[in-house]
C-alpha cells in the first residue's frame, strides 16, 4: 500500500468551529466550551483511500476575518484547505467569494472544500431556507457537535488531494 502525507489547512473566522471539527475528526470528541486558538496547532490522522494510506496533517490555524492576516508561511506547502463558516453568523460567510478568489490567486491548484458548520443549531425548515441565501454554491453543511458530515468533508478533500 502506498503511503502519502498531505498538509491540510483549516481557514475561516474565529469561533466558527475549526478546532471542534478537527477534534471530532481525529479524536471523535466534542466540547461545547469555546477555547480560542492562537497561532497553529497541528494534528495528524491516517486514513485509507483505495490503495493509498494517506496521512492528513491538519493545521488548525487561528481564526481571522481574512486569510491575508494569517502568516504567509502557514499556507506554504499546503495540499488542501477547508474553509469553515458558521451558519448562525452571516459575518463569517458574507465575503467568502472574495476570500476564495484571493486564496486561489496565491494557490491556484489548491483544492478547497467549503463548509457550513453548526447546522445542529438550526431547525430543519430554517436550515433549508437559510441555505438558499448562503453565498456558498458548493458548500457542505456539517455539525462538529453531532458529527454529521465531518468524516465526509475530510474524505472528500482527501480524494481531491489525491486526484
Amino acid at each position, binding site marked *: 500500500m502506498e503511503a502519502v*502525507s498531505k*498538509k491540510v489547512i483549516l481557514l475561516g473566522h*474565529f*469561533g466558527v468551529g475549526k478546532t471542534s471539527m478537527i477534534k471530532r475528526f481525529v479524536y471523535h470528541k466534542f466540547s461545547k466550551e*469555546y*477555547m*480560542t486558538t*492562537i*497561532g*497553529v*496547532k*497541528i*494534528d*495528524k490522522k491516517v486514513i485509507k483511500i483505495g490503495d493509498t494510506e494517506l*496521512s492528513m*496533517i491538519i*493545521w488548525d490555524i*487561528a*481564526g481571522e476575518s481574512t486569510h491575508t492576516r494569517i*502568516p504567509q*508561511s*502557514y499556507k*506554504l*506547502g499546503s495540499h488542501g484547505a477547508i474553509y469553515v463558516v458558521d451558519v*448562525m*453568523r*452571516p*459575518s463569517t460567510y458574507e465575503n467568502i467569494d472574495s476570500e476564495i478568489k484571493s486564496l486561489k490567486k496565491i494557490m491556484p491548484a489548491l483544492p478547497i472544500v467549503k463548509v457550513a458548520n453548526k447546522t445542529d443549531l438550526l431547525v430543519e425548515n430554517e436550515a433549508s431556507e437559510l441555505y438558499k441565501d448562503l453565498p456558498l454554491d458548493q458548500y457542505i453543511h456539517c455539525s462538529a457537535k453531532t458529527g454529521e458530515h465531518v468524516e465526509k468533508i475530510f474524505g472528500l478533500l482527501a480524494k481531491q488531494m489525491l486526484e
Partner: protein
Amino acid sequence: MNLKAYKTKFLESWVQFIVFDANGNFVDSCDTLFSISDCNSSLFDDIPFLESIKELFTTLKTGERIDFPCITTEINNYSAFCDYVFYKIGYQNKTCILWVIADFTEHYANLTTLQQQRNESVIQQELLEIEKKNALITRDFLEYKNEELLRLQKLKSDFFTTISHEIRTPVNGILGLSELLSDSSKTPNHDYIKAIYANSKHLSSIVNDVLDIAKIEANKITFESIDFDIRKLVTSVLDSFIYLGKERGILVSSQIDSAIPPLVRGDSVKLSQVLYNLLNNALKFTKKGSIKLFIKVLKKYNGTVNLQFEIVDTGIGISEQNIDRIFNAYEQVESDTNSVYGGTGLGLNIVKQLLELQGGEIKVESKLGKGTKFIIVLPFRVSEANKEILNPISFEHKSLRILIGEDDLITQKVLSEFMRKWGYSVDIVGDGKAVINNLTLGKYDLLILDNRLPKLTGYGVIECIRHDFSETTNNTPIIILTGDTSDEITKQFVEAGVSKVLTKPVDASTLLASINDAVLNTEKEARHINLDYVMGVADYDKELVSEMIDIFIKTVPQQIRKLQQMLRVDDFSGAKDIIHKITPNFKYMGIDNANPILKYLKKNIKKTQKGTLIEKQVNHLKEITKLSIIILKKEKLNLQRKPLC
C-alpha cells in the same frame, strides 16, 4: 563575562537549536527545551509539523530562513507555544537544516487570554445584533399581519353587506312574483315565470360563488381527472357567448391550435367554469368590438401538455392602479364596479385559485379604454385513449354502427361475417331507397354502399344525403364498393365527399384498413376547418359565407398550381407574392394546419431548389387544400340545407 557571554546565557535558557539533514535524520541538538539527541529515526516520521513541510526544505536556499510564529509544540512531554525558524546551513561537512525553537509560552498564554476575551465579546455582540434584527423583522411582520387581518376583516364585512344586498334583491323579486302567481283569481302570467327563473338563476350564481370561495378557503375543493375533448368543451362554452355577443353586436370567435391532442385528461368542469367566468367578464365589460379565445400548445413533456388560453376583448380595460387588485377576493365591492356592473367580485379570485390549485397560472394585460387580455396556462395529461385513435388496429375493438347497402346475397353474407368478427353492429339492406329509409330512422358511424344498388344507385343515395339530410348524417363517412374501376367513377365519388372507393371483391384487411381510415379522417376533418372566423366576419350571413367558400374553391387551387410553375422557373418573388395572396384565404376558412406551411414558405422560399423541402411543403399545402375543399363543399351544403324531404 562579556556582553556576548551574557547574551548567550540569556538565550540558552529558552532557545533550542536542532540540526537535521535533508532526509530528517538527526545530526545535533543542544536539548535545552526537550531531549531529542537519542532519536534514531527520521524527525519527519516523529514530528508531524516537520513531516508536513518537508517539501519546503528542498527548495530552501543556503542562508535563507522560514519563520513559523506561535506553534503549539508537544514533543517528548514538552508542551509550549514556540516560534520556529528554519535555516539551510553547512554543518559537519554536509548541507543541513538548522531548526531554532524559541519558547514564548508566557507571552502567548497572555495573548490567548486577551484573544479569548476579544473573540467572545465580538461573537456575543454579533449574535445580539442578529437577535435584534430578528426581533425587528418579527415585529414588522406581526404589524403587517395585523394590518392585513384588519383590512381583510373590513373587506369581508363590506363584502357581506354588499352580498346581502345582492341576495335580497332577487329573493325579494322571487317572493313578490310568487305572490302575484299565487293569486288564483288571475291567469298565470308567463312573464312572471320567466322573471322568477331569471332571478333564481342570478341568485344561484351568487350563492355558487360564495360557496366556491368558502370551499377553496376551507381547502376542501377536489379536482377530477377524466378524459375529455377540449374542442367540444370550448365549442359548447362558446356557443352561448356567440349568441349573446351577436345580440349585442360583438363578434365572439375562437382559434384552436391543431397540435392540441384530441383527448386530454383533467377536470373539464373546472375548466368550463374558468372559461365561462372569463368570457362572461369579457362580455360584461365589452360594449363593442370583439372577444376572441385563442388556445395553443405551450409545451409538451412526459405525457403532459401545457395549454395556453388567451381571452382577448376590446372592452373598457383596467387601470394600472387596479390591475394588481383584480384577483383579490372581496375587492370589487370596494370599487364602483359593483354598482355599475353588479357581481360578487369573487369570480376572478375563484378562477385564479382554481387554476393555481391545478398547477396553472393566470396573468392579465390591459389598457384602459382599449381592452383586456387574460392569459391562462394550465397543464393537462395527454390521454392514453389518443393512442387508440391513432392506432388503426385498435379500431377492431371500437364499437361502430354500420349501414351496408348491398343487393348481392353472397357479398351481403361475406360483409356481415366480417362485421360480426370485428365486433361492429351492422344493418344490411338490399336497395338505395331502403338505405335512405334506415338513415331517417337512426344514426350510423359509417355507410358502405354498392355503386349499383337497385331503386337508387350509390351515387343517388349520396346526392340525397347531401341535399336532404342533417349535418350529422352528412358527416358520416362513406365507403363505395364498385365493380367499375375507371378513374372517372372514382373522381366522381371523391368529389362527392366519399372517403374510399373499393373494388369488388374486397378482402378483409383492405376493408378493415379502409374503415379505420374513413372513421379516422372524419374525426380529423372535424378538426380541420373552423368557419367561426369567416362567420363572424360575414356577420353570420350564410349566403356571403357560401360565396366566400366558392371563391376559395375556385381560386386557391389555381394559385397553388401557379406557385408550383413559378418555383419551377425560379421566380421566387412571384412565388412569394402568391403566398401572401393566398394566406388570408386559409385564415378566413379557419384551416389552421396550413399556417405553419405558409409561414415556412414565406420565410424560406428564396432558398428553393428542386426536390427540396420547399417542394414537399407546397405539395403538402396542395393536399391540405384538396381535403379542405371536400369539407368546405360539405359545409356549404350544410349552410344551404333544405328541410328533410
